[in-house]
């Protein structure tokens, strides 16, 4: 039996979290200071960053759920990396508070007093009212937090005991967990993003966000594994075979994203009903149209052709470039979805967009590495660990 480095030490464990937490705090402080002068910009930038990191967290929760649901063996070695991302849902709940306390008026115009005169909003008021909105938010975060805790705690507990019953329990929880996940993700994104344009509706929107979150989370898990590899951790354990499989999943789910994005557009284009087309009219205005074209090329055409070959997936440098590009293009995608509500005339990049991303991102990954160093870097007594270590693509 080979001795394995189990714990994160060195720069990633000690210095990096402090740097990230400091960066996060300073950036968020900058956002808070700017709130007085430009509350609308601060809130929309913050919302974009929040939705981005929420997608990352929920995508990782999905990765864990599907891992147990399919009794996957190959991904065991990557599981702790994803579990720790998923475990950040508590932080996301805290980061939601500024939106709940300060953001409702600026972000959601259905909360305005005039909404009472709006016939469509009157009809939707039974669902779309502030009280029920908060109740739902509590339910969503409650379910996510509970699921994340159950899966994380059992996995960590198994590190000590090696008891197989943890795995069996989590396989059972994954069954209804994935149903709860699908429902809460769909309804939360309807509440928090789709209701920014409360007249408009699309039944594909939840799935669209699901596709975004899955691609994003797979890419970030890969990036984190490569970062650990660079620092000398899990070098012989996470092999090119694992990266190859992660690459296949990224590739597949990216095509799924395209499929969903196009289907949403296509049905609305075909039917040509004003209350549906309005959303695309707004998102094709001015320079937003260029962003949309950029998304088609950058989110679909380039990765579709560039990431097709197994040689690219098995070349770690090329793979790294592709997944970083996918993270960037996901930011562009969410920006294109959310920001036209703020600047309908065209794209207006602000310093606060960067500050919000660095703020939430700093806290998010600062906490991430603090948590990652607490336990072993992989589920060291998982019954399928050996299978994962010897995994080989056919």
């Amino acid at each position, binding site marked *: 039996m080979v001795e394995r480095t189990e714990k994160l030490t060195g720069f990633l464990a000690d210095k990096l979290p402090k740097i990230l937490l400091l960066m996060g705090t300073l950036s968020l402080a900058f956002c808070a200071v700017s709130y007085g002068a430009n509350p609308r910009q601060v809130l929309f930038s913050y919302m974009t960053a929040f939705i981005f990191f929420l997608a990352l967290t929920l995508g990782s929760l999905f990765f864990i759920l599907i891992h147990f649901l399919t009794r996957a063996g190959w991904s065991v070695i990557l599981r702790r990396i994803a579990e720790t991302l998923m475990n950040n849902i508590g932080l996301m709940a805290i980061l939601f508070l500024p939106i709940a306390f300060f953001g409702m008026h600026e972000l959601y115009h259905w909360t305005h007093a005039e909404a009472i005169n709006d016939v469509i909003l009157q009809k939707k008021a039974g669902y779309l009212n502030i009280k029920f909105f908060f109740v739902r938010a509590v339910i969503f975060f409650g379910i996510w937090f509970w699921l994340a805790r159950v899966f994380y705690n059992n996995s960590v507990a198994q590190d000590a005991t090696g008891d197989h019953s943890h795995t069996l329990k989590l396989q059972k929880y994954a069954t209804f967990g994935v149903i709860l996940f699908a429902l809460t993700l769909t309804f939360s994104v309807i509440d928090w993003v789709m209701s920014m344009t409360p007249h408009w509706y699309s039944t594909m929107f939840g799935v669209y966000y699901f596709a975004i979150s899955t691609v994003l989370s797979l890419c970030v898990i890969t990036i984190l594994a490569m970062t650990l590899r660079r620092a000398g951790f899990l070098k012989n354990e996470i092999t090119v075979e694992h990266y190859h499989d992660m690459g296949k999943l990224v590739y597949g789910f990216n095509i799924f994203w395209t499929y969903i994005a*196009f289907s949403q*557009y*296509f049905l609305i284009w*075909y039917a040509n009903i004003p209350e549906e087309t309005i959303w695309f009219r707004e998102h094709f205005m001015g320079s937003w149209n260029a962003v949309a074209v950029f998304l088609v090329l950058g989110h679909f055409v380039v990765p579709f052709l560039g990431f097709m070959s197994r040689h690219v997936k098995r070349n770690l440098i090329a793979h790294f470039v592709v997944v970083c590009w996918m993270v960037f293009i996901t930011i562009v995608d969410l920006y294109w979805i959310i920001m036209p509500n703020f600047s309908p005339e065209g794209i207006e990049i602000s310093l606060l967009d960067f500050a919000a991303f660095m703020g939430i991102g700093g806290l998010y990954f600062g906490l991430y590495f603090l948590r990652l160093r607490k336990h072993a870097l992989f589920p060291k007594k998982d019954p399928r660990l050996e299978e994962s270590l010897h995994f*080989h693509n*056919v």
Partner: protein
Amino acid sequence: MRKKHSFGVVCEFQSAAILMKAATGLRDAGFTKFETYSPFPVHGMDDAMGLKHSKLGWIVLCGGITGLSGALLLQWWTSAVDYKLTISGKPFFSYQAFVPVSFECMVLFSAFCAVFGMLALNGLPKLYHPVFKYSRYHNATSHTFLISIDKNDPLYKEQETALLLQQLGGENLEVVED
């Protein structure tokens, strides 16, 4: 009438591990025209036998491109050139409407190429193979493992090859005639 020719030498192995070792040994000795038979897929056998990557991916890619461009061409020609119809006031060449059909044709042609290409590359369907004449062949469908070396292999010399196979752990060696 097909000319009768001797097929080569076949022998039996008792476990997948010995089979792997033997295949590696044959590969390292420079044999190229040999085949392994097992009741279940053995992971890593491709490497052990020194098999190159399948060309199937390229065949599927060609099929996909053919399906995609063929479908686009057909739709463009029928709805924008040969028989123009105004449908819900949209342009004749509405690429949005062409996407589903083009996509489906791409998938269909790719799938055909994958299935039939796989069959063709494997030489299937094959109703007869000389290895069936090996007296213990049926064992390889349940619990033993076989290696056959074709006599057309440049390194094939009946006596020496048989000896090599025995050294690698082969049992019940037979020279199989077609």
